[in-house]
């Protein structure tokens, strides 16, 4: 046996040491990221009229990945003009023809899945395990699913059919860059709309790479236009007079601002905003699987998930047991280089987000909550934050009220089901919730009482193209996915 020493701990403790340390296992497939990207307008990559660019860096080591064009108002206008022109023929194309394009896009994405997964990880910082096993396959699944709908629009509602709206302006976030693009593009294209899409400024690369898939698929020019940039570009996209509808996923503050500017314009709007989901664990729950679900609920994608289970509500009688099992489980989570195949928690998306997480965690400590972080060696360069638990949290703490959007779990307790529902609903948000119990009737009861767009039972963070996703209250309105998602991109005739 190779001689590596491990020391036995004293009292009833499990030792998760370095007896069998895994060697680095970096994903080596090339990402094919161009040094510079233009704007994708009318089927071609074009230099920005604004003549401005900005750098896209990798949060994994802060190295520059590519130079991205900054779209000004003139560029956004060009994109809308191209989309409006393309709409004339695209909207009249038979559904079967539009379906062919969507199927082709889905297959091309599958063909290049590994390359896209690596690019997504480099650009956004999520573990390669997740971009490879979740983001890219799920993005392809959304195109496949909506390809199936394209020629069946007259069967969505009995006696009526769906007509497209026109040019859709879409603004997407940085947490699931490619997947959010798929969630937005697939239903819009299936229903015969054309699109101007703006990815988040920190994660433009997979959207721009995706443009090459659109070219390979032979999608008619102008049907999809991708303009890159930050808030100002986004506001130009939202405010353009040719937009028939705006679809936005992002923060509640920006969502509210968009809603204000669109008031009275007649443009349609769907918003998918923040969340502060409650994960409710009853004493009869299968504890080990609940612990696994809690971990998956909050540490998936470093907690950069709008529906993350960031508030754990656990019944008082088992609170201590659950907390101690969570701590043990945290010891085997691997935080570090997202490109390593064994990494469970990767890099925080940006310096700004890392600062925000640090600030909120400091406020939790100041408010008097108990902090727990496992010891882990974080890489020197890049943006990293260790998985964090807060116990003894009360409803008034900022860590229990504000969306942290990071790997931070706030643990609260409850005594009765009624109290659990009350605490779970005591938030401005209403995107998702989780219920853990062996009692089926309780799940059904709670699912109607919890004001959340999705209620997961004995699982968490499960997505499917067939299942509509969206929120209540300040988590937004409109649904994405399923039959309901189609209706938000069409008018009934």
């Amino acid at each position: 046996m190779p001689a590596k020493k491990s020391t036995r701990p004293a009292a009833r403790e499990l030792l998760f040491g370095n007896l069998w340390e895994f060697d680095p296992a970096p994903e080596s497939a090339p990402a094919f990221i161009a040094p510079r990207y233009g704007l994708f307008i009318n089927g071609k990559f074009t230099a920005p009229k604004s003549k401005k660019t900005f750098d896209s860096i990798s949060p994994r080591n802060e190295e520059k990945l590519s130079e991205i064009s900054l779209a000004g108002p003139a560029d956004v206008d060009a994109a809308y003009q191209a989309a409006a022109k393309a709409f004339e023929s695209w909207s009249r194309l038979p559904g079967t023809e539009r379906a062919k394009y969507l199927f082709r896009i889905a297959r091309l994405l599958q063909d290049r899945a590994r390359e896209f997964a690596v690019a997504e990880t480099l650009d956004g910082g999520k573990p390669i395990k997740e971009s490879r096993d979740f983001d890219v396959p799920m993005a392809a699944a959304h195109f496949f699913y909506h390809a199936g709908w394209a020629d069946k629009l007259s069967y969505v509602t009995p006696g009526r059919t769906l007509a497209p709206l026109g040019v859709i302006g879409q603004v997407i976030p940085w947490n699931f860059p490619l997947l959010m693009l798929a969630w937005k593009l697939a239903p819009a294209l299936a229903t015969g709309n054309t699109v101007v899409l703006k990815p988040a400024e920190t994660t433009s690369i997979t959207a721009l790479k995706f443009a090459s898939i659109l070219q390979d698929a032979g999608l008619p020019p102008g049907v999809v236009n991708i303009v890159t940039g930050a808030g100002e570009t986004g506001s130009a996209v939202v405010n353009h007079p040719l937009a028939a509808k705006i679809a936005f996923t992002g923060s509640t503050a920006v969502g509210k601002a968009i809603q204000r500017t669109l008031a009275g314009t007649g443009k349609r709007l769907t918003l998918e905003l923040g969340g502060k989901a409650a994960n409710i664990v009853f004493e009869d729950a299968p504890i080990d699987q609940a612990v696994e679900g809690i971990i998956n609920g909050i540490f998936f994608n470093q907690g950069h998930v709008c529906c993350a289970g960031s508030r754990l509500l656990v019944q008082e009688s088992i609170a201590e047991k659950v907390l101690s099992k969570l701590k043990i489980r945290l010891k085997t989570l691997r935080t570090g280089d997202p490109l390593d195949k064994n990494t469970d928690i990767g890099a925080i998306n940006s310096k700004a987000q890392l600062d925000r997480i640090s600030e909120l965690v400091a406020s939790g400590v100041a408010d008097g909550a108990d902090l727990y972080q496992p010891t882990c060696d974080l890489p020197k360069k890049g943006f990293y934050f260790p998985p964090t638990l807060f116990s003894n949290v009360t409803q008034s703490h900022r860590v229990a009220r504000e969306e942290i959007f990071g790997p931070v779990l706030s643990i609260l307790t409850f005594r009765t089901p009624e109290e659990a529902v009350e605490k779970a609903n005591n938030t401005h948000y209403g995107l998702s919730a989780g219920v853990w119990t062996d009692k089926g009737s309780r799940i059904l009861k709670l699912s109607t009482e919890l004001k959340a767009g999705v209620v997961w039972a004995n699982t968490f963070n499960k997505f499917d193209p067939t299942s509509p996703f969206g929120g209540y209250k300040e988590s937004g309105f409109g649904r994405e996915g399923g039959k309901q998602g189609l209706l938000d991109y069409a008018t009934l005739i």
Partner: protein
Amino acid sequence: MLNTPSLRQFLNDIGTVDAVGIEERVAKYGTRSIKKSAKVFGLTLATTMVDLTTLEGKDTPGKVASLCLKALHPHSDPTIPTTAAVCVYPAMVKHAAKYVKGTSVKIASVATAFPSGQAPLKTRLAEVRAAVADGADEIDMVINRGAFLAGELQLVQDEIAAVLEACGSSTLKVILETSELETYDNIRAASFLAMQVLRPGDFIKTSTGKTSDNATLGNNQVMLEAIRDYYFATGIEIAMKPAGGIRTAKQALQFLVAVKETLGDAWLTNTRYRFGASALLNDLVRQLVKEKTGAYQAPYTFSESSSAY
């Protein structure tokens, strides 16, 4: 234990298992990427954990002799360690003793009317005593699944206690035969029934290898978590042996990752974890030699057919 509690009452105490959740958990073990020196360490460790097994009606003293020699010298490469034990029927214990007594390789023997256990308790105990008398260091018993499924939990536990007594100083491994218990809840309950009477260092074991469904990452995980919970409750360290169906080195590494991430470093040793297997050793050695030489050797280098050691 209380007086003959129902399974439901027992599960209230020890907690239940969600099948979907546990299978999702164990699927993640398969995504761990184990390379270079970590791979060599894992393969070597797995080799030291093998209970090299032959349990056939056609076993002969000659077959057992070559099995023992293979356990002692899995390969001409001296850096490849010996296995933990050989595992044979009681009638073969004395033949195995000739080769491995006094070496690092232990003699394990299945007893208690293996694999069905459908014999009077008196007969089963006599079989255990005979195997121990012939030199068995370890006894692999089967639980009374009929009694378990009929709800006679106390009887199941009493029988385990009786076998334990018959073992004397030999280590006991309690085979739950997971595929006949069928549900994860049952497997967890049976694990606790056994652990409550076992000594530190005794084993719970998944299967006989004689049914269609044997060791899986799922039932392995349920049992590892039972061992962990029991350890925290009592301080008693129970060992684990998955058996049957683990044929490749890759599978063995996934089971070891489960141990590493559930019970930690203290269980990554052959006094706490074993593989009951016959074909596995060949693949472990094949992969170890491949790591060293960079090339796969011809199958006959590893006495490929498991019936031709």
